[in-house]
């Protein structure tokens, strides 16, 4: 069995997390559509917001990942960007959220 990553989130905001994650996960398909259209400016905007929102909600690993994604899209390094996007999705599939 794979060892799960654990992220500790403020129990106060537990009620906000499901909608937050749902919207974030939906944004992944939006990013893929934008990649197909080579709309790097819009992708940069989304990843830039991700840095702040992931981190502010307590997902600091994903905030750092989003910062790397922003760098890659600015450099138009689409292959690495795609790998980081998959990494972000994989993290969410595997993470265990502990509210404290």
């Amino acid at each position, binding site marked *: 069995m794979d060892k799960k990553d654990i992220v500790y989130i403020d129990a*106060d*905001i537990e009620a*906000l997390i499901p909608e*937050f994650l749902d*919207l974030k996960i939906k944004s992944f398909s939006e990013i893929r559509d934008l990649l197909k259209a080579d709309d790097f400016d819009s992708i940069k905007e989304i990843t830039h917001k991700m840095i*702040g929102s*992931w981190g*502010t909600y307590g997902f600091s690993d994903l905030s750092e990942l989003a*910062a790397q994604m922003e760098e890659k899209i600015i450099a138009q390094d689409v292959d690495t960007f795609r790998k980081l996007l998959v990494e972000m999705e994989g993290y969410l599939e595997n993470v265990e959220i502990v509210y404290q």
Partner: protein
Amino acid sequence: MQTILLVDDELDMLKILTMRLTHEGYKIEQEGDGSKVTQRVKDLKPDLVIIDYYLAGQDGAEICKELKSDEESKDVSIILYTAAKDKVEDEGFKDIADAVLSKPFSKEELLSTIKRILASKRKPRVLLIEDDMLIAKLVLFKLEKEGFDTSWKDNGLDGLNEAKASKPDIVLIDIMIPKLDGFGVLEGLKADPDTGSIYTMFLTALGNEEKIEKAFNMGVDDYLTKPFLPAELIRRINKILEEK
């Protein structure tokens, strides 16, 4: 509009106070029967009760004690008025009322007492100008939990207009926002004498630190870099408001 419940069994007193306070922009409700006051307060949830100490067949102090001991009404502010202020003060009014006025009192004395009490009870108001709905939702949730009154606009133009209309205690401004960026909002606030002294805090993403110097030169009071801990944001807001 703030609501005041006037309690007096003298119709003339209710009339004159209603006229004066309505003219000052307060919404006035009247009650002449002391036995109904607690229920009226529960139903109306007024910002303030102004009550005569001596009501026919009723003791204003007892009504105040009843209000303060009931979970639903205990937070309401109360002004007692009486022709025997010394006696009331000797009896320890502070546990049951926020202020005591001695009859007869002037319009100015009444208004200044009302304003002082309502200002001391008022929740600090925070306007958030932020286009990231997820960040906004979290920040508003935490601020409201901490007892702040909040409002939110998702673009700079609406945010500036809202600040001018509602004059909050503090405005939190994201730099990269649609229609008018954070600097434009700050410039608009500072240029208007009505909003120039409102406290401002920039919320800025990593990488925008070089813009902070510009913001400080324009008069911003503080800034916070995203991502931030909501607890840190609240600590900074409280610090600014305490200094204010």
